[in-house]
């Protein structure tokens, strides 16, 4: 069973994502900000990360940069998932090491498609 970490400060979004992911047979973890996500990754690196951009404590982009610099941090598939949809943000995300970039709101179909593309499903 593959694992996925949902990083978002909104309970609602985490809940939505969890339902979709569990439906796709992912073991799901949640983190409310980048720092918490980083802590989780250090104990158990997930296969995939669904990452929000704007979060308190540590935002998504900073988390990504930290993650990719850590041991084993290159392995998870990181899907940025945000409403920040301008070119500047996308460029930044890709440079920081995002594998995919989807826009909120997402649904099961989108997640499934994306995960198929990156070979997770």
């Amino acid at each position, binding site marked *: 069973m593959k694992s996925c970490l949902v990083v978002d400060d909104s309970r*609602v979004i985490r809940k*939505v994502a969890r339902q979709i992911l569990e439906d796709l047979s992912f073991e799901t973890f949640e983190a409310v900000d980048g720092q918490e996500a980083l*802590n989780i990754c250090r104990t158990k690196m997930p296969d995939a990360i669904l990452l929000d951009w*704007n979060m308190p404590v540590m*935002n998504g982009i900073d988390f990504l940069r930290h993650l990719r610099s850590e041991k084993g941090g290159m392995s998870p598939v990181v899907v940025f998932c945000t409403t920040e949809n301008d*070119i500047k943000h996308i460029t930044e995300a890709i440079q920081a090491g995002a594998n*995919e*970039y989807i826009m909120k*709101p997402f649904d099961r179909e989108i997640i499934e498609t994306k995960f198929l*593309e990156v070979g997770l499903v």
Partner: protein
Amino acid sequence: MLSAICNARPTHNTGVANMDDLLSEFLTETNENLDTVDAELVRFEKDPTDKAVLDNIFRLVHTVKGTCGFLGLPRLESVAHASENVLGKFRDGELKVSTQAVSLILKSIDAIKIILAELEANEAEPEGDDKELIDKLNEVASGKIVDAAPARAEEHKPETVKSEAKAPVAESKPAPQPETSGTFADGEKKIDPVLNRELLPGEVSMEELEAAFNAAPGPDEDKAPAPVAESPAEPVPAVAVTAVADDHSDEEEAAPSPPKAGKQAQNTDTAAKNSDTSIANQSVRVTVDLLEDLMTMVSELVLTRNQLMQIVRDQEDSKFKVPLQRLNLVTTELQEGVMKTRMQPIGNAWQKLPRIVRDLSHELGKKIELKMLGADTELDRQVLEMIKDPLTHMIRNSADHGLEQPKKRLAAGKPELGTIKLNAYHEGGHVIIQISDDGAGLNIERIKQKAIASGLATEADLEEMSDQQIGNFIFKAGFSTAETITSVSGRGVGMDVVRSNIEKIGGTVDVRTNPGKGSVFTVKIPLTLAIVSALVVESYGERFAIPQISVIELVRASDNSEHKIEELKSSPVLRLRDQLLPLVYLSDVLRMKRKSPAGLSANETPEMGAQTQRGKDDYVVVTQVGDFRFGIVVERVFDTEEIVVKPVAPILRHISVFSGNTILGDGSVIMILDPNGIANMYGNGAIDPDEAGAEAVSSEFAEEKTSLLIFKAGDDTPKAVPLSLIARLEELDVSCVESSNGRDVIQYRGQLMPLVRMSDTHQLRTEGRQQMLVFADETRTMGLAVDSIVDIVEDSLKIELTSDITGVAGTAVIAGRATEIIDVSHYLVAAFPDWFEESRKSRVKRPRSVLLIDDSPFFRNMLAPVLGTAGYKVTAVENADQALALREGGALFDVIVSDIQMPGMSGFELASMIKADQRWQKTPIVAISAHGTPEDFERGRSVGFSDYVVKMDRGALLRSLSETLSVYGEAV
């Protein structure tokens, strides 16, 4: 390497089964976020350079927007988006932070709240859109109306916006086909083919987005020049960051950090964070209902425990003793634990206040600082809910009425910035909340005027009140002293509602004011409503609980103790430390009849039983409701007990004297009394001026209180004389009484003073000390022998029967007893036939006519002979109407002497009427009143009185009349 970007339609098919669940989660989360935004924005406006605050706000609004899409809430999303857009521009420094812009964002947050409320109620977004508001926000974002006048609030209420379809584009523009280009001819609005909706300002189409994504360099291509100009490609993504959310601005500042240092910082960070996380993971969200149920169950358990304890207490060596003790302990701890779950910091109720104060300071043009102390003071959430509104109102009041305009403040030597301070702390089982301001303090003079105008008190009443007591008038219904009614407060509903709301939860509110320095409102509320400390009392064999918070003291009253229940105007009263305390018999309040009173013979009716029972040995529970203090008479007092308040059954709910019921340790169900309800019921009996209508007020005037000395002389009938007429009370040995010229005299202060007896039959004491009342004039004194001084009372001097007995002006009911009112002038003349001769010297050639208007027969009887002996021709009438009738009849007088406080038309009004009409216009009017303050004098003069004399000062009246007449001379 990257494939197409997809996007969900803003629909409901998020693939999530339980939408209701999600929606309620969303509502909770968003409401929490918005409360924070309100407070943060106010902070932000004060310090626009505070980046951390701005980031916080931005993120919160952003989250709202981001979440909306999942639930298919386009209207909410568009508002959030527009305001996020403006915030984004603030953050990026593209837009200067202005009051107007912040106001606009606050308004958009209000709009969001309205939509949320609707969502909560109907589970759907309300109809209509927020086009105007969004347009304004967009204008601000584009820098068009940075400093324009703030838009009016009404324009932004979603309800008033013209109702348009949910998809505004479809209505306002010819609907474009999805397959056509997303760009319109006018270039303003674009429809994204993927999103199938109009693009929001600043949003790019999905096609463009995808193109950008494809064009963007991946991490492996970062050596290549980035196609998007401003992004500096950085090979090492690891950077040292602090825990503060910093967004993408770190591009510039943090780029070159060596990865190692970054890691080190990270490690220490992590250690700190780990503990935080574990705490976060330990908390569980549960619904309030669950806690309420838990509380109910615990209450039941407490009751059962009490019952068990009661049973076992009577059994000496019960096996249950030890386990029961444990049960007792565990129950107590459980109760405390559950109580704690209901506790919330009071700061939750204050969250909206900074925003309110901010808006007020703009609206009123005042500079206001809100200081909040003790925000972490905890209290029951139920109580918290109920004090929210009263607190908000009091803050508004302080800002509006309390604090002065900046100019006034500077003139008064105060800093321009006014301060409102909120302070909460625990004291005993209560939470005290103080709302203080450093403003002008309450306007006592205005409150007085208002109290008189609205009939809440008479001038005489106010005279005897402290500023604090007068200040408390603001809590009376319909009381507003604001000179101009602002939109903020001063609508006349206010502090009375505040008071009643606070009293509803068993709290009290009080005000202390310091002119020029500010006011302090103190609210005292119980920590919780579920379990209260109560005094258990008995009346007619039934037990009742009275909440401890309203009980001030307990007094035992019996016929032979120093505290005795007396009757005043057939109402029971208790004389307690020189104050008369109105009483109510609990048995009367509840209209209970004694079943079969023990010790009473069978032929006595229950009522008689009650009568004989009364006064024997009663307990008075001294109770305070607001500023009204009264006593509840009960027969027995048990103990105080922690009781669990259970709501009154619906069938009894209309009975205001009960606030609930409870089960005692012995298993009996008893009612909890509501002192508030009793006070109201009692107030309707016309003793509480609070509740009495206009009629009661006019009778209030008739019952102007006078201090009377009650004494006995000659017979058993109590006699009374106005205290103000008496110079001294003396007691002399009877042996000092000498006889001269057939009259009793005594040597008194180096003079011979005649000693007059009440009547010819009245005998002096034969031995011991003789008591006497001394009446004095400028040069002479006279003693009136009495048998005993009974009391000094305040009562209305309403002579009900005139008297034929010489020396008695009439009979009045004083302190519940028929009392003879002494005609002092009779005795004065008896002592000195020429007593009034002095004044006669100033007698004018022709007798002058005086019109005397006084509602009190006593004063008419007293003053008429005084004026008569001084040579005036006196016409006495008892009210203003009669006086005006004389004017209609063509009567003319040289001078008018009028009382001020009279039933119907007051002296002031009469004077104005006289001065307004030609006939008596030139006739001087002299006011007489029982009380004389400089203000009264001033008011008297302003309405046309020539002079103002204190009623009892006979000499002054005569002097005044002769002066007035000489000034007006022969003009009349």
